[in-house]
């Protein structure tokens, strides 16, 4: 009887000890970064009649990065872009782009991206690049895309205030994949859209950060 009790006690102790030992590995807090509204650029380019590229930006966005350095699977990227804020340095063209021929902002006011899986790309020597797969929703159509997002740098912000982390991603999408097909029939406006997004996130106090949306 004593032997059985001692075995049971030993097993319970071993279980408790392993649980306590494992606890610190899962209890660490991930860093949350929200978009620094003064330091972000969302730039796109598209071919015009195969003669030139027209560039544009989106002026308004929100983003949140949950950076878990010990458990990459828990890292998350999330961004919402206001389609109403499109700017191609031409008011008439911007109106047209906001209309039903292109972004249709009265129906689809936002472009959103939400990551589903994040892996650290081991191929990039000396650089931290995440391969971020997620759902990109634009013009009411959701597609899964994989973006290479590079962590460009980290450190205190201007004046030493706050902790910043900067990111960059560049990719190319087909607008037809998102139901934007106007002027494809005559190749007036290209199908491929080059996209560059670079932004800084400001580290939030864990527990006090509301959702980014």
């Amino acid at each position, binding site marked *: 009887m004593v032997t059985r009790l001692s075995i049971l006690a030993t097993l319970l102790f071993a279980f408790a000890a392993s649980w306590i030992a494992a606890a610190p590995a899962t209890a660490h807090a991930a860093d949350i970064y929200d978009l620094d509204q003064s330091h972000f650029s969302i730039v796109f380019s598209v071919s015009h009649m195969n003669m030139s590229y027209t560039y544009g930006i989106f002026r308004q966005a929100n983003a949140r990065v949950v950076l878990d350095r010990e458990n990459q699977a828990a890292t998350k990227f999330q961004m919402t872009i206001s389609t109403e804020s499109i700017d191609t340095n*031409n*008011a*008439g*063209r911007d*109106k*047209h782009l906001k*209309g*039903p*021929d292109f972004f*249709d*902002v*009265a*129906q689809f*006011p936002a472009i959103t991206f939400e990551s589903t899986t994040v892996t650290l790309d081991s191929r990039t020597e000396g650089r931290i690049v995440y391969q971020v797969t997620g759902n990109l929703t634009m*013009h*009411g*159509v959701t597609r899964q895309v994989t973006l290479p997002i590079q962590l460009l740098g980290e450190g205190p912000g201007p004046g030493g205030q706050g902790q910043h982390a900067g990111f960059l991603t560049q990719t190319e999408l087909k607008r*037809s994949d998102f*139901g934007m*097909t*106007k*002027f*494809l*029939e*005559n190749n*007036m406006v290209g199908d491929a859209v080059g996209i560059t997004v670079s932004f800084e996130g400001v580290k939030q106090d864990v527990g006090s950060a509301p959702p980014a949306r």
Partner: protein
Amino acid sequence: MPFGPMDLFWIGAVPASAAALLMVALRRLRPNTTWLLSVGGGLILGMIAQSVRVGWHTSIEKLLHPHVALDWLPWLVLVATGICTLANHTRSRWQHWLVGLACLFVFVVPLRLLANSVYVATRWSLAEKMGVLALWTVAFATVWRMLSLGQRNGQPILRGGLLIVVAGGTAMTIAASGAITLGEQAGITAATLLGAAAVALMKSLQLRQENSGLDPLADAGSTQVFHPLDIDPSDAAGPLTVMLGGLILLAHYYSELSAANASWLGISLVAAAGWLPEGWPERPVGRGVLRTVLTLLPLGMAVASALAAALADPYR
């Protein structure tokens, strides 16, 4: 804005041919049903063809899984055509049910077209939503009713011709207001009417010739016998109201068509083929001139205003 031969083919030739072929294929039906189904079918086939330019897959996807407001328009035109077809073939004691169905439908049209907009989602209060919905329901019902009653005024060729001009003017106004796609759809309406009307006129002339060969009195006789194939633009009042009214609504809320130009286009649509009080002027020529003026004046104002704004814009 680019508009080449291929655009003319897809937006002009395809719907016009489709409507013309339907007029021939359905010639054994009642004349008013032939006209209705040809116009309704031409509009729907034209809308499908417009997206076929990009690819069959895209076109079918848009039709089967509508995700922008415009994608619902073929379905709404189909329902309007169905209601009008039922009205043509239903006994009079069932007509009030069809009127009720049409009333419900004109409430559904603006509701469906605005349902996914930011206005409904976030920008409008409940009172605004109800107000806008009521306004457009009344507008659709009024235009449909006026176009249906237009038959009482006669002059179907003039009214049909003016309707084609209004559809063309609507296309120009909407396209100049920043929505090329919607403008193209109005162009499809003009082409559809043109294709169906051309066949109707040819059949009319053919019948006239055949009859004059059989009956020597026919040349001097009443033109009412053939006038004009018992077809009237009013027979397609439902699909035309939904198509052109829907495009005006979409261009106003989703693009830059001003409220003033939307109103001018609506007025010109009713004036072109709708009912006008009878009795003044007494002579048909005078009534025709009055109708033409009442149609072209507001239409001209809308087109001129939209084109002036577009031409003043360095982006073209």
